[in-house]
């Protein structure tokens, strides 16, 4: 590969993202589509900023629905960013069409989660690995073959003759992922976005592929974005990690610091949840409940507040949290209480659109006064719970009970905490 002349403004930062946003339109119901109604949208990546330095391995860690895969695809230009700014090597990529990005593809490559799906089932290993060279018209004939062989050897598929004419269906999962790595490194790119490269592999192969990726980094001077839900491999593999929740980075910093001293309650919960085969490790304490909410209707304020063990009144409590609180209460108290108390509320599934006020209507022959008493009793049972702390007022209008919430503080932005960490949490 011809070496490029060093540009004078070349800096240490290879990729920089500023308030990057990716919004998808929701397809909605078929009826809504038929009438061309607006069906809303999902902000899969919601204002993400970070710098990626040359030669660095940045881990993007999150659960499914956190937007980590979309972020990876946005970095690759496979989905177009709908807002913010994305710079690669100083060039602004935001909003570029796929055709305009084509020349950059020699420098940006991607490895996918499922090696079984990432290879064209009707292409041999030789054709597949060499195809990037063919596509960019960089080599043909003997030169092409030579480079394919070299690339396959680099990823450990030796003796090469055994693999050249194989189809993906003849290979094991680990071998397929090696072929994918050979294909994405044959152009000797600068940046490799690896989306869960080992999670679909058998556990005895994971360490091998991870080692291979480390070797490739040393050999080719790669910069990695490592997208994963597996904290253990991120801890070993990455120089820095970004923890994502519902489209945002909630914590970012050097791996050692984040793992030794996690700041964000979500990071803490994730770390506590990693199962560990070491029998001497004490069993995990309380496991965080709940799941990632629907990104189409993110919670108000800090989107983690409904699950957060450290949440307080300013975290963005809103009307629908009342329903969640009631569900939790019935889960604790049992079937009989549920049968008795849920009777008294007629509109559990719809407490009103205003996030500041929840409207409960009495049902099952109960009066609004009885309903009011029920709510007040629940409140008095847990007066210190963050949810009730954020309730400014419970009133009985005669026909319904209105629960009002204090005004939410703004969304937490990433702020420095600790030595090199940044955290998006009202606690810091």
């Amino acid at each position, binding site marked *: 590969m011809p070496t490029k002349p060093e540009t004078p403004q070349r800096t240490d930062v290879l990729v920089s993202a500023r308030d990057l946003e990716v919004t998808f339109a929701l397809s909605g119901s078929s009826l809504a589509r038929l009438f061309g109604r607006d069906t809303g949208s999902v902000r899969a990546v919601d204002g993400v900023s970070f710098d990626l330095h040359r030669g660095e391995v940045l881990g993007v860690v999150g659960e499914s629905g956190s937007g980590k895969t979309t972020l990876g695809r946005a970095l*690759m230009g496979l989905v177009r960013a709908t807002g913010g700014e994305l710079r690669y090597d100083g060039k602004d990529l935001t909003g570029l069409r796929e055709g305009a990005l084509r020349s950059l593809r020699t420098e940006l490559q*991607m490895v996918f989660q499922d090696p079984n799906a990432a290879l064209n089932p009707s292409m041999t290993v030789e054709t597949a690995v060499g*195809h990037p060279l063919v*596509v960019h018209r960089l080599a043909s004939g003997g030169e092409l073959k030579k480079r394919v062989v070299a690339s396959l050897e680099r990823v450990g598929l030796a003796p090469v003759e055994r693999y050249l004419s194989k189809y993906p269906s003849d290979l094991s999962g680990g071998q397929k992922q090696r072929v994918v790595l050979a*294909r994405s490194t044959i152009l000797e790119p600068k940046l490799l976005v690896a989306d869960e490269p080992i999670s679909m592999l058998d556990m005895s192969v994971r360490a091998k592929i991870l080692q291979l990726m480390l070797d490739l980094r040393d050999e080719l001077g790669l910069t990695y974005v490592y997208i994963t839900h597996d904290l253990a491999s991120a801890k070993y593999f990455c120089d820095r990690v970004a923890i994502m929740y519902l489209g945002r980075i909630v914590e970012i910093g050097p791996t050692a610091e984040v793992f030794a001293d996690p700041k964000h309650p979500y990071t803490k919960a994730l770390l506590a949840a990693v199962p560990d085969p070491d029998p001497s490790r004490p069993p995990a304490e309380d496991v965080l409940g709940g799941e990632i909410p629907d990104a189409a209707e993110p919670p108000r304020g800090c989107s983690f507040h409904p699950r957060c063990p450290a949440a307080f009144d300013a975290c963005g409590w809103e009307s629908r949290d009342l329903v969640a609180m009631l569900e939790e209460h019935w889960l604790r108290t049992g079937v009989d209480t549920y049968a008795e108390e849920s009777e008294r509320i007629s509109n559990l599934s719809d407490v009103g659109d205003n996030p500041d006020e929840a409207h409960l209507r009495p049902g099952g022959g109960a009066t609004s006064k009885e309903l009011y008493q029920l709510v007040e009793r629940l409140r008095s049972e847990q007066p210190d719970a963050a949810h009730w702390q954020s309730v400014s007022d419970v009133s009985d209008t005669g026909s319904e009970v209105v629960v009002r919430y204090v005004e939410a503080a703004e969304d937490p932005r990433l702020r420095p905490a600790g030595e090199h960490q940044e955290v998006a949490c009202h606690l810091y």
Partner: protein
Amino acid sequence: MTAASSSPEDVASKRGFLPRRVFVTPFTQTTGLARWILLAGVVLTLLFVVAAIFAPWIAPYGFDQKSAGGVNFPRAVPPNGTHIFGTNTQFYDVFSRVVWGARTAIEVVGLALVFALIIGVPLGLVSGYLGGWLDRILVLVNDTLFAFPSLLLAIVFAFLLSSRLGGGVIAAAVSLTVIYVPQYFRVVRSTTLSAREATYVEAARAMGARKLTIMRRYLFANVIQSVPVIGTLNAADAIGTLAALGFLGLGIQPTEASEWGYDLRRALADASAGIWWTSAFPGLAIVLLVTGLTLVGEGLNETLNPTLRRRRLRPVVLPPRSGQDSGEES
């Protein structure tokens, strides 16, 4: 997936590239009925293909020959030694007409399929992969064509084309093509729509491949897998449509080639006069070829369609435990 290599599905699922899959695996991996259906279909179809290819040698006379060696054929004689299927009211030898008719049928249907594939597959691929307004227009046109009864469509086109292309094989093939293009378009478009989302297509985009390259190298081979099945089933349908056109006098003109549908029409009046052979043999030929092609299509469907496939399993005999294993039991 756990225990992957130990389940029979996975051991047998080492599938290969398309040609091997379509032509070899159907025979090696089928069981029972599916295998017999396929075999019977292939034998029947081959019979007609052989007749079509070797028609000049198999048929004793030409399709429009009324005399041999200066002697005129008798009119409407029943099957006998010289005319094994008899002769018809136009003095033609019925056996020769049937054999030459096979050639016409195979030629027309073959051409129609090739035309339909050449037009339908690329359109489906482009429409499915690119989407947008082009897709909408193509879908609209195809759905409109689809909405017409196929015979009506063929009649209209045969009528329109007869003035330009004459009443020959090409004109008939083109009229049939119009009917079958929407079918390939539809199937290829829908498989493209799902294949478009496959990771390997995204990988090709990430690689920097152009749209044309993606369609040609990544989608084509993977979306045409269902085409052989529809192809054979369409061929069966096309035989019937061609005969119907001939029956209506709109297909191939008698001066151009022998055609079963046309012969049936001429034989219509004979049946009441007790002349059964002029209609029975062309009719039988149509039924047999349609059946043969349908069987091939169904057989291919059962073997190529993984949801219908049942693989052959070998019986297992568990040997008595050897002494070596005894360490395992305590």
